[in-house]
């Protein structure tokens, strides 16, 4: 009860009367960090944006070039295609995994969590390298399959479309499972029991109660997965072939091989704008969702 009075008191008491530009002693502590990020992070992004319009010559030339050349359009379409497919496969794997985590006893939940966290904190490079070792023609999988006589010829998995998806899903899974599990574990399991008490079958309770309630977390997890997949570089570069080039690789190629900074900047700017738009739109949608849930 009077907790609210006490808790709210000190900060409010310290607050000056001016409302909008007010900053207090604690608030001032954010200034060094903001300056740091503006200088190290935002200024370069703006510089990149500027470069996309000025290098090699002022104008929209770099953007026109992206759309003019079918090869680049193919890369962009491929990027979307791969990202969508990765997101979809990730959803199909992550959802049951996260759901199972809410069902099992704490010991198993912790084990499942650790299995998810180990790759989460293992570098993408190390994992992609390991996947090469597994997937290549003389790799672990092909050798084993040949040894047991299941196949005569090695199956080509490296430098294929499915190889890229296989690798990227592996990288994405933890990013999707963690927010999904966080949401699911917050769902009161008495709600499902209540639904069953009101006559719903267990499967009905799952689809009518649990799934709708898990939507915000799932949507957030998938959105992050999709955005990250759009920008992946290492995994597609190592596991994919020339046919499956993604936008990240194209950006690096343009800088390191042909030194077309302006063009690379235009590609990166497009990717950045797309990322921000997705976040903005989805952010609104997710907040709306939350507000609706709170109201009911």
């Amino acid at each position, binding site marked *: *009860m*009077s*907790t609210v*009075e*006490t808790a709210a*008191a*000190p900060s*409010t008491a310290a607050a000056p009367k001016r409302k909008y530009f007010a900053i207090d002693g604690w608030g001032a502590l954010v200034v060094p960090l903001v300056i740091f990020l503006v200088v190290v992070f935002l200024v370069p992004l703006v510089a990149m944006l500027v470069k996309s319009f000025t290098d090699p010559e002022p104008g929209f030339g770099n953007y026109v070039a992206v759309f003019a050349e079918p090869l680049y359009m193919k890369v962009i379409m491929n990027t979307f295609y791969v990202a969508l497919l990765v997101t979809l496969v990730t959803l199909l794997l992550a959802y049951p995994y996260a759901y199972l985590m809410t069902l099992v006893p704490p010991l198993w939940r912790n084990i499942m969590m650790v299995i998810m966290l180990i790759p989460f904190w293992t570098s993408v490079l190390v994992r992609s390298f390991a996947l090469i070792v597994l997937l290549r023609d003389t790799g672990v999988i092909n050798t084993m399959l040949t040894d047991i006589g299941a196949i005569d010829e090695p199956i080509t998995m490296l430098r294929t479309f499915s190889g890229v998806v296989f690798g990227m899903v592996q990288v994405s899974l933890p990013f999707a499972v963690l927010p999904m599990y966080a949401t699911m574990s917050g769902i009161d399991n008495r709600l499902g029991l209540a639904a069953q008490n009101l006559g719903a079958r267990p499967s009905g309770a799952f689809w009518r109660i649990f799934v709708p309630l898990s939507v915000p977390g799932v949507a957030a997890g998938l959105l992050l997965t999709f955005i990250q997949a759009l920008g992946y570089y290492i995994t597609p570069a190592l596991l994919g072939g020339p046919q499956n080039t993604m936008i990240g690789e194209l950006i690096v190629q343009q800088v390191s091989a042909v030194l077309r900074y302006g063009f690379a900047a235009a590609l990166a700017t497009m990717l950045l704008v797309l990322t921000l738009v997705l976040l903005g739109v989805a952010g609104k949608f997710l907040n709306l969702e939350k507000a609706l849930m709170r109201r009911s």
Partner: protein
Amino acid sequence: MTSQLTYTQQISQVEQQAGAAIRVSDIVKRYGDLTVLDRVSLDINAGEFITLLGASGSGKSTLLNIISGFNKPDAGLLEVDGEDFTRRPPHKRGLGMVFQHYALFPHMSVWDNVAFGLRRQRRPKAEVQQRVGDVLRMIQMDHLADRKPDQLSGGQQQRVALARGIVFEPRVLLMDEPLGALDKLLREEMQLEIRRIHQELGITFIFVTHDQHEALTMSDRIALLKHGKIVQLGTPKELYDSPNSRYVAEFIGESNLFEGRVDADGFVTDGGARFGRPSGDGSLLMVRPEHVRVAASTEGLTNAAPVRVFNCVYLGSDMVVYGRTESGQVVVARTPISHGVSAPLEGDRAVMTWATEDSRLVPDDAEQRQA
């Protein structure tokens, strides 16, 4: 005590002087459009045990925080022993405090928690040892001095918080709902303990609670707050026996209130019943349930309210009878259970009666505001 004295000197003078008198004058506190304290004035005597009582949002905690220095009033004056404390930062006030939920430092042992204040005052090591040891013995916690707060029970944490607040012998101890987190039995035990410590130390205690029962048990005086104003200040007996408004009558204890008016022959309720004229002024007649008896007939009674009994609750030592008059007024009687008196049954007709001197006239809230 003059302001030239250093903080430590002030503290050491306290030892001779015990409690401090606190004067709160016309304190105003607003949060945006909301006025939390509206020109509150209060004189607290040295050595007194005063309780700030009120419902949530009444401003009692804000007033306590203004005394402790965590809130700055928008207007008004706070004096401690004649010294202006209004703008003094909290760490230079030297007032002991026991916080809601104790606020024990979780990363420090019991000993370090209690010694914290003495160390901030740079007392000599030997003195710190001595005092912390003494106070822990006083609250029977010396054997748990090395424990961390989260290894203690709620009651033990409560004792440590109390020890931490009094170990440097402040002139005033402020307590913000200190017993709110304890179960009923422990709370009653701690009420007695706090009362005992107050008598032993002789310093001023300011106690904040929303529990009227607690306030009645412990306080020398009670200030009842409502919407940022003190509606009544007085001893527990004064508040209980002569509330100055309907709000006080209803907040403190249970009461039967009849609306009506005084005429030449006594008190006439709006429902037309006639009772003897009690002392006091106002348009409400108040009689506490424990003064109401249940009689069989109105014969020979000055104050008689015929009712139909609609509920009867057995409380072990007492019995509470709820009746409703014809005009719809509920009358409650609380009587000791004795042999030979059978409890009325629901639906029975009965007569509620009381002695005129046990009733009292109380102003209705609107009248009180004008007064």
